[in-house]
């Protein structure tokens, strides 16, 4: 049971992010929520990599051969870069939305202005 605390933390992060996305009305807060979900998922991948008493998967001289799993590290690296790309694009769109509507409130944007 005590060993599952990292997973509970992952679930907590994901739920906090989802709550921000669903219940918040400010665009910046929605973006922050998505970033928190992403951190939760990245944390999940990293927790999968850990093995008790293991070292980082890098050979240096005569170290112990029990290493943590390398594949989740690689997946997390990819997912972080993807997160940066998505974040950059979302912020760009928010800048444009603010220029058009002069507000960041979801309830006030989105009307057609033919």
């Amino acid at each position, binding site marked *: 049971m005590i060993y*599952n605390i990292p997973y509970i933390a992952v*679930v907590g992060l994901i739920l906090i992010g989802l709550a921000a996305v669903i219940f918040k009305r400010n665009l910046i807060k929605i973006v922050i929520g998505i970033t928190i979900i992403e951190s939760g998922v990245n944390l999940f991948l990293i927790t999968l990599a850990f093995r008790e008493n293991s070292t980082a998967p890098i050979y240096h001289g005569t170290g112990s051969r029990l290493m943590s799993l390398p594949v989740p590290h690689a997946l997390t690296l*990819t997912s972080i870069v993807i997160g940066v790309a998505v974040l950059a694009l979302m912020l760009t769109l928010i800048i444009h939305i603010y220029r058009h509507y002069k507000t960041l409130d979801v309830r006030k944007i989105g009307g057609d202005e033919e």
Partner: protein
Amino acid sequence: MSLRNIAAVVFFTIIAIFLIVGALLTHPFGYPENADMDQYIIDNTQSETGADNGVTSVVFDYRGFDTLGEATVLFTAVAGVIMLFRRLNK
């Protein structure tokens, strides 16, 4: 509370319960049930790819195509951001 909010709360609670039960059922932290593929990579990274860093050997050799996709994602984002901030009239 509008109907939309109630639906959102119900949806949120269901997801929360499922994920927490799932977290309790996952394998104990630090003891993966099955690590054949990763153990193979750890054992063979030096002889097959020549790299000391296992993560780099996964990123650029074993799963190199993912990294091409990842580099492309960054390229896409840069192209998108530059395109969205372009000058609109010639």
